[in-house]
C-alpha cells in the first residue's frame, strides 16, 4: 500500500476509534438518566434524583470528551479525504450538515441547562432538558449512520459524467434500509455500554457496601434495559444486519467468516486463525452447517466464498476483519448470558445479595466498549477496498497533496493529545465514582438569575 494512503487510513482509524469511546456511553447513558428522572417524577422519591445527578456528572465529563474529539471527524473528510469529499459531497454533505443543524444545536442548548440549571427549572422543565439532550445525541447518531450506510450501501444517487455523485431522493437517502438496520444495531450496542456502566457501578457499590440504596436503583434500571438491549442486539438487529450484508456485500461476509471457498452447508468457524496467504484457517473450532442456516435459514444452502471474487475486491485485511467480527459476536453472546442471569436473579429478588453475580457484572464493564469498537471495525474494515461500496476505491479518495509525512505529523499530534484526554477522563470519572452519589446541592451555572441582576 502507498505510504500516504496508509497514513490517511491510520489517521482516520485512530481518531474515530478514540472518538467512539465517548458517544457510545453518551447515547447509552442518556436514556437511562431520562428513565431515572422519570422515576423521580413518578415516585417523588429523591433517591432517583440523586442517582440521576450522579450519572449526569459522569455524563458531563464524557460528553465534553465526545464533543472535542468529534469536531476533528467532520474536518477530516476535507483535510485527509479531499477527493472523496469532492466526489461525494453532494450526497454525504447532507446528513453531515443535518447533524450540525438538527442535533448539535439542540444538544448544546440544553446540555448546560441539564447539567447546571436544575434549580433554575421546574422538575418537569429539568426532565425536558434531559430528554432534549438524549434526543439530540440519538439524532446525531442517526445522521452519522446515514452517512456511513451510504458508503456501505449507496442508494438514491446519480453520478454525473465528471464522476460527481448527487442525491436523487432526500427520503431515499435518509431511509436507506442499510441505515435503519445499522442504526438499530448500533443503538442497542450503545445501550449495552450504558447499561453495563450503570450496572457495573451498582455492583461496585454493593460489593463495597456503600450507597446501597442508589446501587440497587442503578442495577434495577440497568439490568432491565440491558437484558432487552443485549437480546435485541443479536435478534432481530444483528441477524438482519448479517443477512443484509450477505446479500449486498458477499465478499465482506466471506471475509468475516473466513470462508475462502464456496460451500453448500457452510460451517461457522467459532475460533481460529485465518491465513490469507494459503487461504485456510488454522486450529478451527467449527459449528457444522451453521453459517448456511444463519444466512439462509436452511442447513444446505450455498454460501459464496472469497474464491468467487477477484482478489482485488477482497477485503484488504482479512485476519483483522475476521477477529473484529468474532470479538464482537463472541462478546455479544456473553452479554446476553450475563444480563439474562442478572435479570433472572433480579426477578427472584436475589441479585443484590448474590456476590459472585455482582463480581461478574463489575468485571464485564470494559467489554461493551471493546465489542462496540470491534463492531465498527468489522463494518469499516469489511467495506475495504471500497470507500463507497462497489463505486469508489479507498485508494482514490485521499488528499493527494497531503503527503505521508504531513499525515504522520498530525497523527502523532492527535495521539499525544488523546493520551492526555484519556488520562484526564479516567482520572475524573474514577474520582466521581470514588466520591459516589452523595447528597449535595444542585449545581448552577450562575449567570443572571433574576435574584442576582443588579
Amino acid at each position, binding site marked *: 500500500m502507498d505510504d500516504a494512503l496508509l497514513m490517511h487510513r491510520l489517521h482516520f482509524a485512530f481518531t474515530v476509534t478514540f472518538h467512539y469511546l465517548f458517544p457510545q456511553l453518551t447515547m447509552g447513558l442518556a436514556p437511562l438518566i431520562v428513565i431515572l428522572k422519570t422515576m423521580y417524577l413518578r415516585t417523588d422519591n429523591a433517591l432517583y434524583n440523586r442517582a440521576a445527578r450522579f450519572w449526569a456528572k459522569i455524563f458531563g465529563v464524557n460528553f465534553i470528551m465526545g464533543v472535542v474529539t468529534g*469536531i476533528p471527524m*467532520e474536518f477530516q473528510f476535507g483535510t485527509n479525504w479531499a477527493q472523496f469529499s469532492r466526489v461525494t459531497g453532494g450526497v454525504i*454533505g*447532507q446528513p453531515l*450538515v443535518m447533524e450540525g443543524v*438538527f442535533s448539535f444545536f439542540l444538544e448544546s442548548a440544553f446540555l448546560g*441547562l441539564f447539567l447546571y440549571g436544575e434549580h433554575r427549572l421546574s422538575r418537569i422543565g429539568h426532565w425536558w432538558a434531559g430528554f432534549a439532550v438524549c434526543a439530540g445525541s440519538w439524532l446525531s447518531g442517526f445522521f452519522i449512520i446515514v452517512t456511513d450506510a451510504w458508503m456501505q450501501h449507496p442508494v438514491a444517487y446519480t453520478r454525473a459524467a465528471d464522476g460527481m455523485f448527487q442525491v436523487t431522493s432526500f427520503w431515499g437517502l435518509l431511509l436507506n434500509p442499510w441505515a435503519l438496520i445499522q442504526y438499530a444495531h448500533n443503538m442497542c450496542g450503545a445501550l449495552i455500554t450504558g447499561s453495563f456502566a450503570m450496572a457495573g457501578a451498582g455492583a461496585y457499590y454493593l460489593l463495597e457496601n456503600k450507597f446501597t440504596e442508589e446501587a440497587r436503583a442503578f442495577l434495577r434500571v440497568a439490568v432491565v434495559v440491558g437484558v432487552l438491549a443485549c437480546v435485541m442486539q443479536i435478534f432481530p438487529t444483528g441477524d438482519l444486519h448479517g443477512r443484509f450484508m450477505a446479500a449486498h456485500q458477499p465478499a465482506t461476509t466471506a471475509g468475516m467468516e473466513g470462508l475462502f471457498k464456496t460451500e453448500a452447508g457452510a460451517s461457522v468457524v467459532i475460533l481460529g486463525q485465518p491465513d490469507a496467504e494459503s487461504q485456510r484457517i488454522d486450529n478451527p473450532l467449527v459449528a457444522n452447517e451453521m453459517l448456511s442456516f444463519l444466512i439462509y435459514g436452511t442447513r444446505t444452502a450455498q454460501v459464496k466464498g472469497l474464491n468467487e471474487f477477484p482478489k482485488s475486491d477482497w477485503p484488504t485485511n482479512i485476519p483483522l476483519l475476521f477477529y473484529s467480527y468474532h470479538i464482537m459476536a463472541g462478546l455479544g453472546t456473553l452479554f446476553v448470558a450475563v444480563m439474562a442471569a442478572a435479570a433472572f436473579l433480579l426477578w427472584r429478588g436475589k441479585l443484590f445479595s448474590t456476590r459472585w453475580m455482582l463480581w461478574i457484572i463489575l468485571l464485564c464493564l470494559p467489554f461493551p466498549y471493546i465489542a462496540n469498537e470491534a463492531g465498527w471495525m468489522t463494518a469499516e474494515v469489511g467495506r475495504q477496498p471500497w470507500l463507497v461500496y462497489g463505486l469508489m476505491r479507498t485508494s482514490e479518495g485521499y488528499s493527494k497533496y497531503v503527503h505521508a509525512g504531513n499525515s504522520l505529523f498530525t497523527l502523532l499530534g492527535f495521539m499525544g493529545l488523546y493520551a492526555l484526554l484519556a488520562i484526564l477522563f479516567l482520572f475524573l470519572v474514577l474520582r466521581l465514582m470514588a466520591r459516589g452519589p452523595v447528597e449535595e446541592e444542585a449545581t448552577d451555572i450562575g449567570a*443572571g438569575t433574576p435574584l*442576582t441582576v*443588579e
Partner: protein
Amino acid sequence: MLLTWYLLVAIMIVAYVVFDGFDLGVGVLHLFVARTEEERSLLIRTIGPVWDGNEVWLLAGGGTLYFAFPLLYASGFSGFYLPLMIVLWLLILRGIGIELRMQLDSPVWRGLFNGFFSIASLLLTIFFGAALGNVIRGVPLQPDGYFFLPLWTNWTVGPQPGILDWYTVLAGVVALVALALHGANYAALKTGGDLNLRCRRVAAWLLPVLLLLTLASLAATLAIRPALLDNYQHMPVLYVIPLLVGVSLAAMWRLGRGGHELGAFLASCAYLVLMLVGAAAAVYPNLLTSTTDPSLNITVFNAHSGEHSLSVGLIWWGFGMALAVGYFVFVYRMFKGKISGMTGGHGY
C-alpha cells in the same frame, strides 16, 4: 439558487464570528483582565452556558459549505491542512479548558486549565484571521482544483505564498484585536463592579488600535489585490459597507463612553458583520482565488452541489435553522442579565 447558498454559507460564518467571537474574546481577556481566580470564574460564567452552542455555528457552517460547495470544502480543507489541524488541537484544548477547570478545587489544576482556555482562545483568533487573509489573498490553485500550502515560505505575498505571510499575519492581528474588543464589550455587558470597569477600560484602549488596524488592513488588501474593487465599481451602492464600518466604530466609541453597554456590544457585532459582508461582497463569485491563473479560481459556479440537493436543502435547512434560532433565543433569555459574585455552587 447558487447566490442563495452563497449567502447562507456567508450568514453562518458571520453568525459564527459574531457569537463565538465574543467567547473567544473573553478567552483572550481571561488571563489579562481578570486579576483573581474569582474574577476569572466570573468571566467564564458569562460565557459558560453559551460557548458550546456558539461553536456549533462553526460545525454547521463548515457542514453547509461541504454540502453546498463540495469542491471548495475539499480543496480548501486539504490545502490548509496544517493550520486546520492546529486549529482542531486548539479547539480541543479550549473545550477541555473551559469545561474541566471547575472539576478540581486546586490552584494548579485551575491554573493549567485557565491557561489551556486562554492561550488556545488567543491563538484561535489569530488563526481564524489568518485563514480569512488567505482566502482574500488567494492560494496557488493547481489545474485539478487542489493546492497545498506550507505554514510559511518567505513571508512575502507572492504567487507561492505560505499560510503565514505579512498580509495574513496582519489579518490575524486584526482578528485578535477585533475579537478581544468584542469580548470586552460582551464582558462589560455581563459583569458589574470593578471587573466591568476594567473591561470597559480595555475596550476604550483597544478601539483606536482596531481603527488603525482596520485602515491598515484595507490599504494592504487593495495593495495586494486591486481586483477586489471590481464588484464595488460595478455596484457603487456597495461603498456604503465600508462607510458603515466607520459608523459602527464611531458608535462603539460614543456608546462605550456613554456607558451604554448593550449599545457598544451591538456596535461591535455590527463592525464584525460589516467587515465580513464587505469581504464577501468583494470576492463574489470567487470562493477561492488562484494566485497564479484566474481561470483556475474556484467559484460558486464550478464548486456547487446538484440542483436537487440544493433545492430540497433549502426546506430542511430553513426548518432546522428556525429551530436552532429558537434554542438560541431560549438559552440567551434564560441567562440574561448581569452575573455577580459567588451565589452557591456553579458549574463553570
